[in-house]
């Protein structure tokens, strides 16, 4: 018996007078990987920020475990780990220090061994872990941010363009990680413009164009969503 974990119910979000999301609705079940696919400016990141309570809906509702984000933001944030598009970590701190600090803000204590284990899972080089992040490549910063999200061990993971800047090997590792997390019961909502990557891991894909949902795809019988089909729809409806 699955339950709905993340739900957009006729969600509309405007920035000033301009609507960024228009009346979108979707549901994500527990343990599912849901990919919101769209081009630049489609409203993908706006969706995530609304669920994080960083933006207010103009109308409709963003629900997490059936609770309105706007009404119970503190409890909702405790259930979501968020990986922003550009790994937003402190350049003057090491990977260890960044992770330790943000976890402390979330009220979570993790041992050095736990952190090491997650760094190993995201393949962050051992020798880099104590260096200040100003020396990190974009990929290394992204891995650290992913590690932070994983270390929070929340039931929901929000990923904003998670594979951006990663090399192909790291992307494959990341995809495996996402699949394993979902199998372990973590619900994952990712926004991306990477059709191939989304089809590799997602159980559901929704196409977003100028703030409106224009198509959806679902994996059936344990098979992956067909990349060609999504790509064609993306090219036709999302980018056109």
């Amino acid at each position, binding site marked *: 018996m699955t339950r709905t974990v993340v739900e957009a119910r006729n969600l509309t979000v405007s920035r000033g007078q301009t609507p960024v999301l228009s009346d979108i609705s979707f549901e994500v079940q527990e343990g599912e990987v849901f990919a919101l696919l769209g081009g630049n400016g489609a409203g993908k990141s706006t969706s995530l*920020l609304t669920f*994080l*309570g*960083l933006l207010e809906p103009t109308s409709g509702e963003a629900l997490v475990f059936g609770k309105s984000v706007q009404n119970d933001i*503190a409890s909702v*944030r*405790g259930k*979501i*780990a*968020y990986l*922003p598009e*550009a790994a*937003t*970590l*402190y350049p*003057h*701190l090491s990977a260890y*220090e960044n992770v330790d*600090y*943000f*976890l*402390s*803000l*979330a*009220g979570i204590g993790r041992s050095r061994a736990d952190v090491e284990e997650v760094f190993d899972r995201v393949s962050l080089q051992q020798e880099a872990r104590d260096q200040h992040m100003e020396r990190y490549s974009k990929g290394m910063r992204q891995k650290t941010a992913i590690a932070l999200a994983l270390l*929070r061990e929340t039931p929901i993971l929000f990923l904003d363009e998670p594979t951006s800047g990663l090399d192909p090997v790291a992307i494959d590792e990341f995809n495996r990680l996402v699949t394993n997390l979902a199998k372990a019961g973590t619900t994952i909502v990712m926004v991306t413009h990477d059709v191939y990557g989304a089809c590799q891991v997602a159980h559901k894909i929704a196409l977003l164009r100028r703030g409106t949902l224009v198509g959806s795809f679902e994996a059936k019988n344990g098979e992956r969503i067909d990349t060609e089909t999504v790509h064609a729809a993306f090219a036709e409806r999302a980018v056109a």
Partner: protein
Amino acid sequence: MSVIRNIAIDEWRYWRRSRIAISVLLTGLVLLVGSAFLTAIQMIDASHEREHLQTEAENAFLNQPERHPHRMVHYGHYAFRTPPPLSVIDPGIDAYTGNSIFLEGHRQNSAMFADRQASAGIAMFGALSPALLLQILAPLLLILMGYSAITREREARTLDQMIAQGVTSVQIMLGKGLALGGVTALLVLPLCIASVLAASEGEAVSLIAFFISGYALYLLTWCAAIVLSSTIMRTAGGSLGALLAVWVIVAMLMPRVSSTVATNIVDAPGKIETDFAVIEAVSKIGDGHNAGDPAFTALRANLLQQYNVDSVEELPINFRGVVAGAAEAELTDTLNQFAEERMRVESKQVRIARYFGWLSPVLSIREFSMKLAGVDLETHHRFLRETEKLRFDFVQSLNKAHAEKMTYLDDAGRSGDPEAEKRTRISTENWKVLEAFSFEPFPATDRVEASFNPLAKIMLWLIAILLLCRTIGRRAL
């Protein structure tokens, strides 16, 4: 609470790893410690020197040989204002008003030997008192340390990451504020060290604690303003620009505006104008050196009637001494009217300038600091009144001796008769009319009470900024 503490600790970690922040903080601390050290040496030295000079002046007066009492009236005496203990932190108006007065008959001299008139070289550095640095420079240091506290997070998008961890906007503002509070504690530290010196010089410990608390409250007001600016401004540059503009207005412009407005509203007559008015008023008073002056005709008649004699030579007292005393009393009365009028004008101007404390916490902390340290205008006015009383008392005591210790004939004929001149020289015992002078600041309770008003202004600023943080700041995050 641990989240707030962690945010503050992280801010300090950022500062420790930032060369600019470390340089700013070290520069400020070196300046404050250096200034506290130099000012303390200067004021303690001045205090001991003035005490010594006061004793020397009293001894010099008492050790004068037997002579005519009126010569002692003109020999005069010095009164020194010993700096109060807290002047090691805030010398106040001591440096501008002068610290000693020459007291003599027939004159009210103004205070002299102000540091600003005598300063050269090192004394100019001494002008950078710890109080001035804390009032003007410390807010600037806090601005440079904290202007980007939140804008930096916003620009780097780490703010979103923080919020995503479940941190609330209030926790972020409090955390950043706590970090700046730590800087405040460091800046106040030299003040605490200097306060130990003040305590050892006899200042009440409770008053010192109140004094330090006032400064801490003032700097925390700046911390709150910095956090507010960093919260509502979109960029670090915008935040720095806004804070510097506020600093220039409240720390540089408002003190100038307040004094200009005060002097324009309450016009003070110039020195030359006053001097002419004094000369004109004094010219209407009889000459105390001339017993035959028509101004004393009535006095003579009264005395002759009182003692039932026909001439001043027959009086049991020396009429010339009586005239000297009467003339001095009348002259002093006239001079006091001018002095009181000048003090009234100065007080009114200062009162108007102090209203600007509602617009500038810098003016409020200045008033608070000078009142508590006992180096404000009111204290200076009391010094002038006390020294004038000292002057009048010893001059009149000498005039009394002039009237009672010699005959009219000897006194009037002493310039042509060496024997008469000898008889008009009175015993040195008579010089003991001089009271030992020691100027003390107002009692601690009075000073604390007087400082409530400026402290209330600072508290109002703090409350207003905190309310803005609560409303505008929370929305901006």
